């Protein structure tokens, strides 16, 4: 039952933060979708706003923690020089190389779009608060950006999980 520092950081980066991200997205998405004055009362809007504020800010913060730990802690281990690094192992065989050339190259770049979009969305919720229910143009736009942020993080998360399965960081 041992877990080294590298395995622990990989778990924090992928599993722990990834799970929090999914939960925050679910709460935020439900909050955005249902924040309509024709659907809920003033009390209902306040209740949804709490969930929306929590969901949008947790998603943004978790996205920042994820790309920060991924880029500055886990990624140097992945791309370390020498034949034993996960990157070297993938590139050593043609049938594994695409995991790096396509999967990792896509994941490491597209992931940064998620926290940038999620932060803008969270800011819009904090700025308008209850008034967001009366700004359907902003609410709908924020919902789209929130979903794009989720999809980009999803691409990064799925490839991260597969790559760590094919070539684990140890």
């Amino acid at each position: 039952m041992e877990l080294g520092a590298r395995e622990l950081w990989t778990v924090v980066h992928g599993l722990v933060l990834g799970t929090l991200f999914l939960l925050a997205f679910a709460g935020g998405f439900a909050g955005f979708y249902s924040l309509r004055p024709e659907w809920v009362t003033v009390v209902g809007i306040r209740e949804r706003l709490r969930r929306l504020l929590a969901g949008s800010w947790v998603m943004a913060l978790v996205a920042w923690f994820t790309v920060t730990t991924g880029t500055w802690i886990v990624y140097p281990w992945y791309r370390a020089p020498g034949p034993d690094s996960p990157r070297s192992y993938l590139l050593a065989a043609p049938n594994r190389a695409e995991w790096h050339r396509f999967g990792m190259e896509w994941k490491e770049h597209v992931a940064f779009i998620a926290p940038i979009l999620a932060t803008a969305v969270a800011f819009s919720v904090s700025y308008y608060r209850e008034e967001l229910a009366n700004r359907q143009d902003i609410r709908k736009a924020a919902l789209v950006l929130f979903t794009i942020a989720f999809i980009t993080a999803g691409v990064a998360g799925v490839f991260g999980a597969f790559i760590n399965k094919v070539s684990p960081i140890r």
Partner: protein
Amino acid sequence: MAQMTKTKPNGPVAASFLAAGIGAFMMGLLTTAAAASAGIAGALNWYGPVGPLSGKSLGAVIIWLIAWILIGSSWRGKEVAFGPVYLWTLILVALGLLLTFPPFFDLFE
């Protein structure tokens, strides 16, 4: 009818969305530029263990924050035409997604 209710001006939120689009686009632009030029990739290598990703990611984040500050201060307290701003945000995000897609930026290698 809900849209007619008086609310705070949309300038700060429009600025945050447009700046986010600029940040996403910059991430894509720096990614493709680094793929196209070994010199640019070298210039973006701000921290050896992370390689060019250090400059691409920090560069995009810095430009995003600068854009947010500049546009945000310009649009503070103002109601702007949100439709075109949102359209440009989506265009910039779409370009950012395209420019970070390996089969696309590999064309420039």
